[in-house]
Every structure is written in structure tokens, then in C-alpha cells.
């Protein structure tokens, strides 16, 4: 019974932590734009939290370079179960335009398990909202 209640509240009001893993900031500003009055993801109950220890969902942007791999893993480990990861942007999905660069990863799935990919360079705020909502629809 309690589990049903917490699941319901997680679906209705997911707490989200955003991490920039070597991103050009294009996806990051579209994430912040989705919190702004024009697109307003907050009406779905999404709240940006300052620490991964309070988060349900992790938003990752950027091609993960050698310096951020460790940091990303540590942030993922600090999140309490159950947790979900959304990889936002072409760089987080597969390395994007930086494929082959000597200090660029091949996508976030090499570092942490990913539940949802939102492609785009950068994806529009509407696409980000759609992706987050779709993920929550999967949460049982």
C-alpha cells in the first residue's frame, strides 16, 4: 500500500537532478528553458533538486570525457533506488558530432545504465518534456 503511494508520488512529482558531463551547454539551456514559463515542465510536478541524494531521475547531457566519467559514476551511485537515467542530446546518446575525438566518449550508456534517450542537437524543450513524461508513464 505504501509502495503504491510512493510510486504514485514519484510519477506525479519526479525530483530531477541534472548533470553536465562535458556538454557544450546547448542541451543544458534547453533543459532550463523547459522549466521557464513558456514550456513550464513544472506544471507536471517536475522539480530540479540541488543534490543527487534527493533525486529520482538523472538527466545527463554531454559526451562524457575522461575527466567526467568518474564524477558521473559517483553521482549515479549517490542516488537512492529506484532511479532512472535520461540521456539528453545526440552527444549523450552516441557521442554526437564528436565521434572519434580523443577525449570524447561514445554515449552515456558506457558509464551508467540509461532508461531513455532523447535525441536532438539540442532537442527542443517540447521533446525533452515528452521524453520525461514518457519515461514516467513506464514507471509502475
Amino acid at each position: 500500500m505504501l509502495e503504491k503511494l510512493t510510486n504514485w508520488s514519484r510519477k506525479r512529482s519526479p525530483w530531477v537532478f541534472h548533470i553536465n558531463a562535458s556538454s557544450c551547454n546547448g542541451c543544458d539551456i534547453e533543459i532550463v528553458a523547459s522549466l521557464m514559463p513558456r514550456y513550464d515542465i513544472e506544471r507536471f510536478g517536475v522539480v530540479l533538486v540541488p543534490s543527487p541524494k534527493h533525486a529520482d531521475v538523472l538527466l545527463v547531457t554531454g559526451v562524457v570525457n575522461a575527466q567526467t566519467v568518474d564524477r558521473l559514476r559517483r553521482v549515479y551511485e549517490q542516488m537512492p533506488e529506484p532511479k532512472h537515467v535520461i540521456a539528453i542530446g545526440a552527444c549523450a546518446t552516441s557521442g554526437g558530432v564528436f565521434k572519434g575525438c580523443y577525449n570524447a566518449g561514445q554515449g552515456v550508456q558506457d558509464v551508467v545504465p540509461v532508461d531513455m534517450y532523447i535525441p536532438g542537437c539540442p532537442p527542443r524543450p517540447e521533446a525533452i518534456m515528452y521524453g520525461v513524461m514518457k519515461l514516467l508513464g513506464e514507471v509502475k
Partner: protein
Amino acid sequence: MSAQPEKPPRREESAGLMEYSTESLVPFGPIHPALKEPEYFKLVLEGERIVEVIPRVGYVHRGLEKASESRPWIQNMYMFERTCGICSFVHSVCYAQAVEGLTMFQVPARARFLRTIILEMERIHSHLLWVGLMGHWAGFDTLFMWVWNDREVVLDLVEAISGNRVHKSMNTLCGVRKDMPENMEDRIIERMKYLTDRARYYRDVIDTEETMLARTEDIGRVTADTAEKLCAVGPMARYVGMRRDVRLNDPYAAYDEVPFDIVTRNEGDVHALLRLRLDELVVSANIVSYAVKHLPDGPIRIKIPPTIPAGEHSSHCEAPRGEIFYFAKSAGGRTPERVKSRQPTLANIPTALEMLKGQTLADVPIVLTAIDPCFGCMDRMSFFDIDSNKKWTWSGEQLRQYGINKYFPERAKRQLHGQKFSSAGLGFKEKF
């Protein structure tokens, strides 16, 4: 490698970057052997005051310059565009200019004007973004929300012209790829007027609103001499009175055909930076309106062969954050021999370190945001207090909360952890 020179003993008071020009070199060694994590800024404190700052950049180092040597000239443009999402167009213009200088071709006049229009719109969006962020870090989230809502106005225009909000990809070598759509002139001029009015309103807000004044006046001072010696660029040079702006000093694109004047301020604190960027926004809006009215006819691009003649050329442009520099060397082939790009934030870091010295911990986020760095810089900072021998790490958000609680203790009691003001109930209406 030759033997490393002996290091002179370390001084306890703020040993600045400026000390070298006369007598001895004063090195900044690692402060404490335990600080090994790759943090972005390591701040050494004495009680509340910052004594030393150790920068660590490289979190976004992906190896673009090496990769550019194995990609065709035109592909590199779209890769270098993604160096930064906020000033992506100016990177592609600067790269294009560095490469076009190696060829004999001239960019057509219409393309130069179109480049100028998009460049200035990008400056407007970047400055609005920054003003909003300053509001957020100062604890004034309403300003953040309102400014970013106005930012959508200019992003709509950019999207109407180029098809994308962030990475416009509108440039090509020797021209632009998309032309101005029909009947856009009136819409652009009307929206530029709207943005000018809003910029003037925000200027009033930052001049009178207690929150902003308390947090930005008299913070982050640097002398003009220091800024010049440390090669500061962009608003960091202009807020201490230097008339340093590439658009004026060495015009490119259509800047020598559009009348405008740059903005400088003499106060030298973060509040001056706020005023400077908002005034620059008004100047940019005027440039766009003028350029749109005087857009020359003609082709928007010239097709050039995929091999670029051998030679070396460099180009510099004024991004919203400062001067961008590109150097291109060709060996006559389809791929470059060497491309070098220098972002403005790197040029401003030495000045930022000087700005931080002597500030209190609560002012750190404001000062660091004032130089207009990339977001990632603010994500994680580590601290070491000499007095209490304590070492700790905070995320940017935690530091922001600390600053707000320090300045506005009554609000600290009311606020839950990290939740922003909800935009519900403020009643925004879509104007356009």
C-alpha cells in the same frame, strides 16, 4: 625535458598573478596533498575570505583541434559550432573568416549583413540568459523567469530565419545557407523594439531592487591595469573602462557599414557588468533593426572548391563573452593542417581569479557567474579553510543556497531546500 627550476618559498598573503612583473616568481603549489580530485575551482579560505583560487578547467576538453585535422573544411565548421551552445554562431563565423582569408573569394554583402543580424541576435539571447542566471544566483528567481521568457522572443526570430534555436548551422564557407524569409522585416523591428523596452525595464529593476543591489554592488573589483595586463576580453575589459571590442577595433562581417557605439563602464564592480550587458543589448537591437532595413540585394553564398589553398590566416570576432580567436593553416588539401580556437572564458580566467581574491564565500557564485562562464564550471567546487583545517565540497546549488541564506536570513527560514518559485499564478500572457 630539462631540470625543473627551483621554486621560491610560498607567501601567505594573497600572492597574485601580478607579482611576477618585477622581482621574483611566486608559485601556487597544491595547497594540501589531500586535494587530488579533479574539481573545477579549489578555493582556499581564511575564515570567510578567499585567499587563493586554483582553477581547473578541462572538463569539456574533447579534442576538437586534433579531430579537425582529419575532417573536411566544411565539416569542421559544424563541429566547431558545437564548442559552445550559447555562442555557437560566432564560432562558425570566426572559423569561416579564418578559412575564407586563405582563399581569394570575398563573402557577398548580403551574406555579411545576414551574419551580422544573427550574430547580434545571438548576443541578445546570451545577455538575457546571463541576466537571468545572475538573478537566479542572487536569489531573485522572478527575474530569472521573466528574463528567460523574453529570451524566447529572440529565439523565435532566430528559429524563423535559420530553422533552429541553439545551433543555427546557418553558415557555410563564403556565405550563409539560408536567406531572410519574406515579410520578416516588420516583425523583426517590432520585436527588437519590445526587447529594447524590456531591457530598459530590467535596467531599472537592477538599479533599484534591493536584492540585486545588495549582492552585486562593490563586489568583484579589478583595476583597469590588472585587466589589461592579464589580457581580459569582452565585458571584463569594458567594465573597467577599456574600449576593447573587436567590432570596433577590427570590424568584420558588416560592422563597418552599421553605425553603432560600444558600451563601457568605469565602476568596475559586478553591478557595472549588469548595466553594461543590458545596455549592450539595446545597442544590439539597434544594429539588428538597422541591418534589416538596409539589407543589400545579391547572392547569399559563393560556391568554392573543397580544397583550400596553402597558407595561414587568423581571425577574431566579438562573442557575447569576449573575443574569440581562430587560426587556420592549410597545406593545400581537403583537410586542415592545423586549426586553433581560443574561447573567451579562457582569456578571462586570470582576471576572474583576481576578482575572487578577498571576496567572501557568499559572493563566490555571483563573481564566478559575472565573468559569464559555461554552466559546467559552476557544478562543483571544493573548499579548504586554513583556519579550521576543514575540507569540503559543495555543488553549485548548495553554494547558491549558502549565499542566499547569508544575505537574506529571514528568507532562509521560509525556503525549503532548493525549490524555486513556481511560475504558476504569475499570469504570463503570450504576447506574440
